[in-house]
Each structure stands twice: as structure tokens, then as C-alpha cells.
């Protein structure tokens, strides 16, 4: 009992480490699987992988409650999984199925799960800053102790909304945490080409926001930095900026010709810094090879199950295209419904390939 009340740090740390490792391995397995199924033509649209960056998602979200919010980016699979979205709901969404977490309307670039406080990937770079400032403002207005975390890349810090929202959060002392995944590139441009500063963290000084720079390959380092930031925010201490130095091991998107860097650069970084290998090493004998293997096996089984689920799930009904833009558009007593119904009626008769205009409707 006592050791439950006051567990020896080493043990708590070990359990934490294994939990972080499990999350990172699940992300890795998920994204390697996404890559495979994307190339096999089972996943439409764009997909951006975060392989190499898993420690940031895992170390950050391990500090969050389900009622805390995160805003993600176009590279959001890791954030989404780490915040708690089931693989089935994610894979089904990427496969564009009706059982996807967004009913197949969002896909990889616009995946969200409000049931776990995941306010969405965003197809617009820097689109998350406002959402997080707003979620933090909402917590302050509603007098809760929730916090909101914004994940973003180095490239996003060159957009205006980064500047405006960080300043706003500082001035209003909002419970917002800004987690920069500095992976050295924005698509084809390196940070050296797009900013004349070594650490983006210096920008936080311009808002009076405290900043730390951490090794983004070290899940414990990220976890500890976020632990402090989350504690500050929850207790009314205001925003924190955490720059995680990391690296994108895959192309910007699946299929990227990667003309802007050498293969060797990628291999060097990953052989030196793969965050999964790193954490396994840190844990040492605290984690047996068998246990390590089991985590991988379980993750692969979870993914295979998710793929089977997605494949056996139906595509959305065509008529679903015409619903969901407005609250009220399925409710016959609502003015929005009346006009959107009229819009469908104006559209569908000309679309014989969609059958009669009568399909769909409230359901």
C-alpha cells in the first residue's frame, strides 16, 4: 500500500517510460501502416507522417486529461492517437469510411475527435493557434482548470496567426501551451532558409512567454517540460512555449521526391536519435526484450484489427455529402434545413448519376 501512496520514483518512472514507449510504438506502427496502405491506394487524399517525432506527441499528451484540448496540424496522426482516439476510428477515417471518426468527411488532414479534446488536424498551416487560444480563453471564461495545447511546426511560426495568438495568450494569461515540433524543414525549405534565428524559442520573448528548448527525441525530456508547463497553466500561471528539436524521417507527404535533402542526412539522424530506440535504451533492463516485443506485437495486432474494421466498413451514403454543414440541416423544423433542402432539390435533379433528388433527408 505505502509504495502505492508514495511509489519509489524509479518505479513510477519505469511505468511512465513503458507507457510512453507503448504510445510511440503504436504511433510508429500506425504510420508505417498508413504509408503501406496509402501506397496501395487504400487511403485517398494527402497523408503526412510524423515518423521520428513520436516522442513529442507521446510526452505531451501523457500530461493531459481527456477534457484538456489539443489542436494538431496536417501531421497529426501521432497527436490524435496519443490523445486517445481509437485506431479503428482513425484508420476508418483515413480509409474514407462512414465509421470514421469524422464519418469520412475529414480524412488525414482534417481528423478530429472531440470526445477526447482533439480539436482537429488542420489543412491550414498555423490554423491551430486560434483554436487553442480560444479553448484556453473558454476555460478561463468558464472558470475550469482545463488547459489547451497547440502542436505546430517550425514553418508555422512564420505565419501571422502564430504572432497574434501567442501575444493574445500572453496578455490574457491564458492556460495555453505551445509545443513546437522543430523538425528542421517546412516542406522543401529548411529553417535556415526561412528564419535567421537558431532557436525559434527566442520569439517567445517578444510576447513575454517563458520558453524552454528540449530534445524532442527524448520522450522523458518532453514529458517533464510539458509537466511543468501544464502545471503552470492549470494553476493560472499562463502560457509556456516548448521548442522540441526533432526530425521528420519521412518525406513531407507520402510520395515526396525529397529533392531538398540527402538520404544520408535522414539515416544519420535516425540511427543516432530514433526516439523509440532512445527510450528503450534509457529503460535498459527495466524493460525485457520480451516485453518490448510484446508491445510491438500488440500494436501490430491493434492496427491489423483497425484495417479489418475499416475495410469491412461501408463508404458514406452519397446523400451524406449534402448534410452537416449547418446545425439544423437535418431538422425539418429549422430554417436552415428548409433552405439546404431547397439547395439539394435544386442540385440533385440535374445529377441523374446520383439518382432522384429524393434520397438522403433527415436520418
Amino acid at each position, binding site marked *: 500500500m505505502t509504495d502505492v501512496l508514495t511509489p519509489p520514483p524509479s518505479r513510477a518512472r519505469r511505468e511512465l517510460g513503458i507507457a510512453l514507449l507503448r504510445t510511440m510504438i503504436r504511433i510508429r506502427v500506425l504510420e508505417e501502416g498508413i504509408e503501406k496502405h496509402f501506397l496501395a491506394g487504400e487511403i485517398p487524399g494527402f497523408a503526412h507522417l510524423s515518423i521520428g517525432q513520436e516522442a513529442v506527441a507521446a510526452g505531451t499528451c501523457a500530461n493531459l486529461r481527456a477534457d484538456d484540448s489539443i489542436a494538431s496540424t496536417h501531421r497529426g496522426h501521432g497527436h490524435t492517437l496519443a490523445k486517445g482516439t481509437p485506431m479503428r476510428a482513425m484508420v476508418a477515417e483515413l480509409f474514407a469510411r462512414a465509421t470514421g471518426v469524422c464519418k469520412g468527411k475529414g480524412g488525414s488532414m482534417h481528423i478530429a475527435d472531440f470526445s477526447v479534446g482533439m480539436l482537429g488536424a488542420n489543412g491550414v498551416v498555423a490554423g491551430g*493557434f486560434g483554436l487553442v487560444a480560444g479553448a484556453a480563453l473558454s476555460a478561463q471564461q468558464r472558470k475550469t482548470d482545463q488547459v*489547451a495545447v497547440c502542436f505546430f511546426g517550425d514553418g508555422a511560426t512564420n505565419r501571422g496567426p502564430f504572432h497574434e495568438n501567442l501575444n493574445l495568450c500572453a496578455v490574457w494569461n491564458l492556460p495555453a501551451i505551445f509545443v513546437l515540433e522543430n523538425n528542421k524543414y517546412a516542406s522543401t525549405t529548411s529553417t535556415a532558409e526561412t528564419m535567421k534565428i537558431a532557436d525559434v524559442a527566442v520569439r517567445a520573448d517578444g510576447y513575454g512567454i517563458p520558453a524552454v528548448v528540449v530534445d524532442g527525441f527524448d520522450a522523458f525530456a518532453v514529458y517533464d517540460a510539458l509537466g511543468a508547463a501544464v502545471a503552470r497553466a492549470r494553476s493560472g500561471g499562463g502560457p509556456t512555449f516548448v521548442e522540441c528539436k526533432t526530425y521528420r524521417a519521412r518525406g513531407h507527404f507520402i510520395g515526396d521526391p525529397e529533392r531538398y535533402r540527402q538520404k544520408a542526412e535522414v539515416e544519420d539522424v535516425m540511427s543516432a536519435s530514433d526516439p523509440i530506440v532512445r527510450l528503450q535504451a534509457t529503460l535498459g533492463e527495466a524493460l525485457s526484450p520480451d516485453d518490448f516485443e510484446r508491445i510491438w506485437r500488440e500494436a501490430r495486432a491493434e492496427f491489423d484489427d483497425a484495417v479489418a474494421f475499416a475495410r469491412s466498413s461501408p463508404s458514406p451514403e452519397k446523400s451524406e455529402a449534402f448534410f452537416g454543414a449547418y*446545425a439544423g440541416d437535418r431538422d425539418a423544423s429549422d430554417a436552415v434545413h428548409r433552405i439546404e433542402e431547397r439547395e439539394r432539390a435544386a442540385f440533385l435533379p440535374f445529377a441523374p448519376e446520383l439518382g432522384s433528388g429524393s434520397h438522403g433527408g433527415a436520418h
Partner: protein
Amino acid sequence: MPTLSFSDATLEAMREEMRRDPTVFLMGEDIAKQGGIFGQFKGLPQEFGFDRVRDTPISEAALVGAGVGAALTGCRPVVDMHFADFITCAMDEVVNQAAKLRYMFGEQCVVPMTLRAPDGITKSAGSQHSQALESWFVHTPGLEVVVPADAEDAKGLLKAAIRSDNPTLYFEHKALFPQRGPVPDGDDFVVPIGKAKTMREGSDVAILTYGITVGRAMEAAALLEADGIDATVVNLRSVWPLDYDAIADAAARTHRVVVAHEAVRVGGVGAEIAAWIGEHCFDDLDAPVARLGAAHVPVPFAPVLQEAMYPKAPMIADAARRLARREL
């Protein structure tokens, strides 16, 4: 019925909705300490505190972005854009975030945010402070767009906008703020979004309009009456959802329609309405639908130029007269 200024009618709406729902809050530039550049926020921080009525930095993109984020997480923010022209500084947040999130995310969320946008031509404010931009947002699925014409609309539509679970743009004409009019009181008075109001019934011609141009159309109707022409005037109130039933009804009863607004005529809401009438009321029409709107130029500074480039009562009356006399 008590008489209020348009500005005070919006104040009453804010007060009632903020009392009714503690998640309603307000942010914008120069609204709290000063009470807004048109006095439209006077006294609110004194009653609700400076946390629920916030002066902000000059950061339109952040204000709207944060409005969306707050709306996604349990609040009903009202964001004041200072001038409608500055919506352009937050266009991604309005169009790619507020308007699309509910749909993209498979209806997991609602975005109950209201944007207040003082707009329109007045007092030589010049090209960058005089625009009427509602047409862009009618073309952007996911948004509701309302345009009050008088104090009654001002209160009732603002309350409806705040209560709506959809992101709603509320375009309030700067020149209307001082205008007084009767306003039903009581918490329950709301002007339903998507329903037009017929201001005047006449059988010869129908003038379909909204916002400040409703008053100009009523003046025009008076001029027409002197010529023995009996005009219907419809105040659309909402430009999305549009009340197509009211539009069809006016076309069916008069067979001659003028559509008028202060926004630029080319590509304006009037184009949507005239095109729709042409599609759905083809056999009702005895004459072309006449569209009136601002000339296809920015709004000039010099008063003589400014007053020459948007439709007022004589212009509306002239168009209606020509329709009635089949001169079009």
C-alpha cells in the same frame, strides 16, 4: 412599444443574451473602456465585468480564431470586427475554420460564434472603411449572414445570431446606429434567421432589399406612390439562409421586381436573387428583374463622389418606375 436607437437595440440584445447565458462573452478593439466606436457596447463591462467584455490588441486573425476555438469548447463568443473591412484580416479563420469545421469533422461540433461587422458607406470613410461584403459569405457554405435594417431587426437578429449554433455574421450599417425605431421588449423577442419581413404591400412592383437600403426603398415607395405606383417592399433580414418563399411570393404578386443593395452590384447578393427569380419565377415575370447596387469601383473619399456611386431612393424609384411602365 418602446422606441430605441439601433445602437441601443443592439445593446439591449447583448445585455439580455449575456444575462441569459453565462457563456456569452464579447471581445473587440476599443469596445470596453470606450464602449465601442459607435457606443454600441456602453455599460456592458460595468454590468458583466471586463472579463466578459474585453478590449483586445489589434489582432483580428487571433480574435476570430480564438472566437472559433471558444465556440468549439462551450462558449458563445461575440467578436466585434471594428469595421467589416477588417474581416479580410481574419478571412482564413472565417472561411476555412468557422465555416467548415462542423462539416469536415462529421458534425462532432458546433461553432456558435457571432461576428459583428459595422459596414457600409458613410461620412467619407473612404475605400478601406466603407465596404459591404455579405455576398462573399453567402457564397461560403457553413455561415449564416444577417443584415438588420432597423432597430427592431438590430435587436431581434443579434439575439438570434448569438443563440444560433452556426457561425453567424451580423452586418450592421454604421449610418444606422443613431436611427431610432420601435423595438418589442422582453427576452423572448427574437427575429428568426431565414425569414423576410414585408414592410409594405403593393401590387405594381416589388422592391427586394435588406439592411440600410430598406429605408431607402421605403422612401422610394413613397415617391412611387405619388406617381400612382404601388410598391411592395421586402426586408430580407437574412441573406443566408435566404427566404426564397417570400421572394417567390413577391414576384408572383407583382410580376416586376427590383433588387437593391448598397454592396457592389456585380456579383452581389442581388445577382443570386435575380438569378433565382429568373430560374423559379420565369413565367411570373412581366419585365426583367432590375438589379441595383454600388458601381464597380472602390468607395471614394470626396463626398460628391461617394454620394454618386450607390443606390438611394430616387435611383430605386426610377428603376421601379421603368419596370412599371415596361421601359425595361
